[in-house]
């Protein structure tokens, strides 16, 4: 390398590669447009929310987990598909108190619990911003979504007591409508943290338990009273096996038949909401 070469190299490398022509302008104090450091468009995001508590429950309470896949079509719009699984649903503390203290129970239609399901929704991020916290800068988006899906439901037949844990009967698949809002924080180009409040809304009446309608259940009650639940004469969709045998605690599942019949005969309908706080951890691909 000769002297001239070194000087040229030094001049080329030493020059500011992105010299801002307005940097010295007295009229430019701040940059008002900043390029988005972590673009979302056409990217896929997978978020897991392992421990979602229900808030504001009345007669039932749920703990669930969900996995949300979001395709970000643009920086502002995405489409999310969210399967969820309720790993614990039970009578609420208030409902238990009502039963034990004043011997009143919630109506069957108000006691239906979600078991699992999947919902899909478009997701809109109308607001993006950043904040400083403890010396650092965090970028976030405020998002809104609303959609629908389906969910499996169940109802408690026997409360948890000395005879063993609670027993449940399936009340079928329902339409689930969902809506929610939340914040999505970006940690680098790959990782996200979401904090969302989401409502899962379902409605209807209890017309079947484990596929058995009132006529089926009456037949099975009569058979249980006679000594054996044979299942003869019931409809094909009635799951007779759900009322046979005993639980691990020795509880005769046939005892659930009378309760199930009572709930089916109650009538009435209700709209139920499962409002959950979803703290999720995501990765963007």
């Amino acid at each position: 390398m000769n002297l001239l070469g070194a000087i040229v190299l030094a001049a080329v490398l030493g020059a500011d590669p992105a010299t801002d022509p307005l940097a010295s302008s007295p009229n430019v104090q701040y940059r008002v447009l900043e390029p988005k450091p972590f673009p979302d468009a056409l990217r896929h995001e997978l978020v897991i929310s392992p421990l979602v508590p229900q808030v504001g429950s009345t007669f039932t309470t749920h703990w669930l987990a969900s996995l949300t896949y979001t395709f970000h079509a643009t920086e502002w719009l995405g489409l999310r598909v969210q399967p969820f699984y309720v790993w614990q649903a039970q009578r609420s503390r208030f409902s238990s108190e009502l039963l034990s203290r004043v011997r009143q129970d919630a109506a069957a239609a108000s006691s239906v619990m979600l078991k699992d399901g999947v919902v899909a929704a478009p997701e809109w991020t109308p607001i993006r911003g950043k904040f400083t916290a403890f010396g650092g800068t965090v970028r976030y988006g405020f998002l809104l979504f609303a959609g629908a899906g389906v969910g499996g439901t169940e109802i408690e037949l026997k409360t948890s007591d000395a005879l063993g844990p609670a027993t449940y009967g399936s009340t079928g698949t329902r339409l689930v409508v969902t809506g929610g809002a939340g914040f999505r924080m970006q940690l680098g180009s790959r990782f996200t943290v979401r904090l969302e409040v989401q409502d899962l809304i379902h409605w209807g009446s209890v017309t079947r338990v484990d596929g058995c309608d009132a006529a089926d259940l009456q037949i099975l009650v009569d058979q249980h009273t006679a000594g054996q639940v044979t299942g003869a004469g019931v409809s094909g969709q009635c799951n007779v096996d759900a009322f046979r045998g005993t639980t691990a605690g020795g509880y005769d599942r046939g005892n659930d038949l009378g309760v199930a019949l009572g709930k089916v005969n109650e009538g009435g309908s209700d709209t139920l909401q499962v409002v959950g706080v979803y703290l999720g951890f995501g990765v963007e691909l």
Partner: protein
Amino acid sequence: MSTLQVLALAGLAAVLAPARASASPEPPVEPRLYPVGGRFSLGATVGIGVFDTLTRTGTLDLRAGWDFNDWLGVDAMVTGALSGHTALADRIGQHLLQTPPVGTVDDLSDLWQLKAMVLGGVRLSPLYGKFNLGSDLPIRYQGYLWLGAGAAWLDRTSVVVCRSVASREQGTCADWLTESRVAPVASGALGFRLFTGVHGAVLLELRFVVWKDSYLLGVDRAAAEAGTVTGQAAPSPGFTNTVLVDLGYAFFF
């Protein structure tokens, strides 16, 4: 390597060092447009209870605050509340009254209603940021955590202990057991100050107000309906948590 080449590389390094620094300058940091440190504030909010089961609550707060700096302040507030039973609580009482008064029952928890409250607390505001509402309206905000305590004036109307039945068939009571007390309360809140200018901000917060519960166990309904004092105070009544969403405005001086 010749002396000339060494000198050239030394010169290159000397030129590069400042050049690199200017090529990657510190990102520009905008000074806080709305500093609150050392300022006094006066505000008012209205609140509504969420997740109500047996009682419903609406509140009006008047609050005064002082910000020591941009992240730490104190507030004092006075609250008046309109509260009552939910329809569910009234239905429970009605259904119970329609059954014959045989044996004993326990009163329900979480029936105390907030009537008034004074609170003092510390406000920690570690977050300051901005977002754009539309394309032309940047909103600066503070996010805060509030913790404090005070005293609350509470009323309670039982849905179990009726001292005079008006109609057994319709399940109506002429004289439910009512109580009043002043109780210590603890309160916490998560909220935002959304600045509208140097002299004001919209307040939006989620507030928790917690007090110790009390109710009767083993109430002999027949004796109560005859006007006799019956039942014992619950030994471990637990706590009642009332959740409010507050919305209001604060002026800074």
